[in-house]
């Protein structure tokens, strides 16, 4: 087993346990919001999804730095899987956030809300990650360019948030401000549990993706060694490292 597959089972179990616990907390422990009622509970899903996905984009950038420094293919794989997963999480966060916004503000989309707008810009930027990889054929160059892209765009995430926030007034309740938000205790506990659970979910899924891709590469290598070069079909072009 390669190194990044080693803790997969314990990580998966921890994720399932914590995810279940957080859902129990969300539905049975956290109090109903006085103004928004039951719909407010989606807040425990969409905010962690958003935070974790942004963290995932930045993580992808850090892994990109790792690739540029070492030139090892495993860093490219990490970077790719982190950004891939973060993209999926971010689209989930965007959809769930829209539902929350409709219930809370009465609109599916609110332009005057900087958090929302900067989030959208970041997603639009990272949506070009896969097309970029796909349009470079040489695998080594693909990895290098993707790493450069991930570094610059990872740094873009916080900068973009600052600029967009300057351009509009505050509207979102600040969940993670310095005073720890204005949530009452049970809500805070539920929120942080969900945040950790979603972060674990991210880590687990990312590792599964890496394990699957590594296994596929290894299988190909073994098949080639055993059956000769003619036995396996040539690879098609792919955005994923291979």
């Amino acid at each position, binding site marked *: 087993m390669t190194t990044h597959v080693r803790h997969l089972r314990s990580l998966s179990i921890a994720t399932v346990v914590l995810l279940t616990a957080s859902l129990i907390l969300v539905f049975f422990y956290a109090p109903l919001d006085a103004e928004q009622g039951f719909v407010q509970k989606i807040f425990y899903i969409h905010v962690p999804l958003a935070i974790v996905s942004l963290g995932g984009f930045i993580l992808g950038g850090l892994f990109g730095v790792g690739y540029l420094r070492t030139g090892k293919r495993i860093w490219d794989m990490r970077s790719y899987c982190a950004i891939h997963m973060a993209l999926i999480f971010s689209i989930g966060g965007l959809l769930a956030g829209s539902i929350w916004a409709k219930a809370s503000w009465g609109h599916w989309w609110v332009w005057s809300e900087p958090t929302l707008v900067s989030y959208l810009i970041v997603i639009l930027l990272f949506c070009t990650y896969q097309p*970029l990889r796909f349009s470079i054929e040489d695998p080594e160059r693909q990895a290098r*360019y993707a790493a450069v892209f991930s570094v*610059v765009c990872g740094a873009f995430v916080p900068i973009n948030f600052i600029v967009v926030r300057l351009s509009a007034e505050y509207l979102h309740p600040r969940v993670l401000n310095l005073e720890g938000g204005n949530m009452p205790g049970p809500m805070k506990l539920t929120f942080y549990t969900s945040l950790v659970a979603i972060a674990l979910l991210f880590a687990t899924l990312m590792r599964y993706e890496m394990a699957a891709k590594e296994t596929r590469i290894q299988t190909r290598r073994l098949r080639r060694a055993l059956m000769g070069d003619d036995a396996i079909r040539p690879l098609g072009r792919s955005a994923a490292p291979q």
Partner: protein
Amino acid sequence: MRTALAILRKDLLLELRTLETIPSMAMLAVITCVIFHFGLNRNALSGQLAAGVLTVTLLFASMLGINRLFVAEREQGGFDAFLLAPVDRTAMLTAKATALFVYLLVLELIAVPAFALFLAPPHLGSSLPGVILILVLSDIAFAVIGTFVSAIAVQTRARDLIGPMIGLPLLLPALIATARGLGPLLTVQASGSPPAKWLAVLGLYDLVNALLAYAVFDFLLED
């Protein structure tokens, strides 16, 4: 520095002789003004609307220049020659960003008067220095990010598609700051001084991106 100057001189000379990029950028800017006139059905714009139209016009026109920036190097072997030479690779970034910056300045010398003629309200005299300051700062952002994006896109198969797709989101913060900074200057009773907040944002954005591009640019030329 001498290498950068040599490349810059080569690029400007090439542009002067072929007149490939700047005329098409200027044409696109002028035609965009006409398109906005019909699209918005207005004879004159002012305030934030005018600022937005001007910024978007310049942004789209600059996309043409960004797409073309490295094409000659790629198609005629300039990259290989540059990599063979024992020179600092950052010189390429400096030279190309400066060349793009010069293109954008020339573009604005044509596009801003055209915009003023076609769409802007009269009496913009007092706020002109502020407008120039903001445009120069935004040109730096466009030039730095544009060079970086162009260097990535030119090596891809669908370079005309990848360039704008990466470039436009990356330029959005600069676009926001430029448009919001220009807005108060283009109102009919403008005070004349640009909003300090947006100048600071543009300046910082320029600085951060220049440092980032400087840090990663070497990897884009390696082969």
